[in-house]
């Protein structure tokens, strides 16, 4: 499964070397374009074009009943920021925290599958992938049971004063675990963990165990081996995994709605509500456009900084 590429890694991270292609193909230059045309047309019309109509919608004024007129009202962006900056900051903060947690949790598991699992490798991989194929909403609802007050997790957390600790740092607002920032971040981490593990696994699997042995032979401690060999070689997986976790987590509102409270609303939720319930299309479009620009900017800077531009 994994080697056939279930893994949603950035497309160009695939083999970089352009294979020398057979000469005769050059004569039929139109073939690749014919193959590309239908799919690309679909993406241009239903992905690129909507971004333009989204931008245009944000600069229109009017209402649902009388229609909208383009007025170039840039002020809507100021309004959007002023009204909803807490939700914007919150979305980035929650998604960022969930991404770091997913990296911390996903790395040992991916390393184990790639290097240590032996004959259990395929079994563990199946167990990582299978939940990913089952309903996101139902699995998130299950956390309502797991974190509910009468279950042992909350009971134990109370006994061990973990609930007090969470309350002290402001992750929960009472001695329950559910319907809190803690539950939302935990849910986001849980939901996007497979997106972290699969790219990490792919790059750790390519890691030659002999390099680790060599490091040991040269008197590197396990920590040094990790810092100097394993971690740098797994960087492409780390970059791909963090992107694939952060992006959907920043836009998600299902965890915030099912596991959070009114103080944990994320930007996605506001966009959804403005479009579908409040029907304030320009404001909703402006918020959506802000989210798009923020994420594109962050991703570009991150990929530049990480020095893995060849990924894109």
């Amino acid at each position: 499964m994994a080697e056939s590429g279930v893994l949603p890694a950035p497309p160009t991270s695939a083999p970089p070397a352009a294979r020398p292609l057979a000469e005769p193909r050059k004569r039929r230059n139109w073939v690749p374009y014919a193959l590309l045309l239908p799919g690309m047309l679909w993406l241009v019309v239903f992905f690129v074009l909507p971004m333009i109509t989204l931008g245009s919608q944000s600069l229109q004024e009017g209402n649902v009943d009388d229609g909208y007129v383009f007025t170039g009202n840039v002020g809507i962006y100021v309004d959007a920021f002023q009204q909803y900056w807490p939700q914007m900051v919150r979305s980035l903060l929650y998604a960022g925290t969930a991404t770091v947690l997913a990296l911390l949790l996903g790395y040992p598991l991916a390393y184990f599958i790639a290097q240590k699992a032996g004959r259990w490798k395929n079994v563990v991989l199946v167990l990582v992938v299978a939940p990913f194929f089952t309903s996101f909403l139902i699995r998130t609802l299950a956390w309502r049971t797991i974190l509910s007050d009468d279950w042992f997790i909350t009971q134990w957390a109370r006994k061990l004063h973990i609930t007090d600790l969470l309350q002290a740092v402001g992750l929960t607002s009472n001695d329950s675990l559910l319907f809190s920032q803690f539950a939302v971040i935990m849910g986001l981490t849980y939901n996007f963990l497979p997106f972290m593990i699969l790219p990490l696994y792919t790059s750790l699997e390519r890691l030659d165990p002999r390099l680790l042995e060599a490091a040991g032979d040269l008197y590197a401690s396990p920590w040094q081996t990790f810092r100097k060999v394993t971690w740098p070689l797994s960087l492409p997986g780390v970059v791909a995994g963090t992107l694939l976790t952060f992006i959907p987590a920043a836009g998600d509102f299902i965890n915030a709605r099912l596991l959070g409270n009114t103080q944990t609303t994320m930007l996605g939720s506001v966009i959804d509500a403005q479009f579908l319930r409040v029907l304030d299309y320009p404001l909703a479009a402006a918020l959506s456009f802000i989210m798009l620009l923020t994420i594109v900017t962050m991703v570009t800077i991150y990929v530049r900084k990480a020095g893995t531009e060849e990924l894109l």
Partner: protein
Amino acid sequence: MAWIKRHLIAFAALAVLVYMLVPNIVVAVFSFNEPKGKFNYSFNEFSTAAWTNPCGTQGICESLGLSLQIGLIASITAAILGSMIAFALGRYRFRGRSATNLLIFMPMATPEVVMGSSLLTLFLALGVPSGEGAILIAHIMFCVSFVVVAVKARVATLDPKLEEAAADLGANPTQTFLRVTLPLAAPGIAAGTLLAFSLSFDDYIITNFNASPSSITFPMFVWGATARGVPVQVYVIGTVMFLLALLFVVTGQVIGKRRNRQVA
């Protein structure tokens, strides 16, 4: 102590695996619950009522049917469009390659809520009615990229010499493609289609922007039910989906192993 230290990674891995699987186990256990009141969050009494009557809640099987239908059409269409792109990228050199790669990557790097809402603005501008057609257009759009990635990964591992050999033996390009390239790429196409199906079947955020009151998909049904109490039948369907996914993935691996052995 030394034993624990040596297997530290294994323990950490196991703990994370438990974290990832606990919700599925909870869903399976609670599918046998007879909830007290309307919320199925604490275990009350063992019952197989929901299993023997999976359509027992109004609208649940209609929504499931719609999701299956949309999932099938969207994944097959995306598989065709995506495989064509993957073959072009994997087998030909052409101008505009990096632009193509960027356009494939973008939908995977865009939050769903942005894709859903931007499509809504397009449909509003063009006067396209929301409903099943709009949902299908959206699902095909976000599935194509994932199919491209899956198929391209497979096409990249194929030895071009096999195709050259077929040509040397007198096969014309169509024959070479149908008899050599396509069968060899089939596992990638199958994986891509399966992934596309599950993405389509599971999507709530984008679907919600393009649905009409008469096109309630299964995730929309579940979402709607969260406020008034999720029927136990939802847990039954969740469990069946998990088991089917396990079955599909395991079968895929077994077939893959067999094929590899045959090739080797």
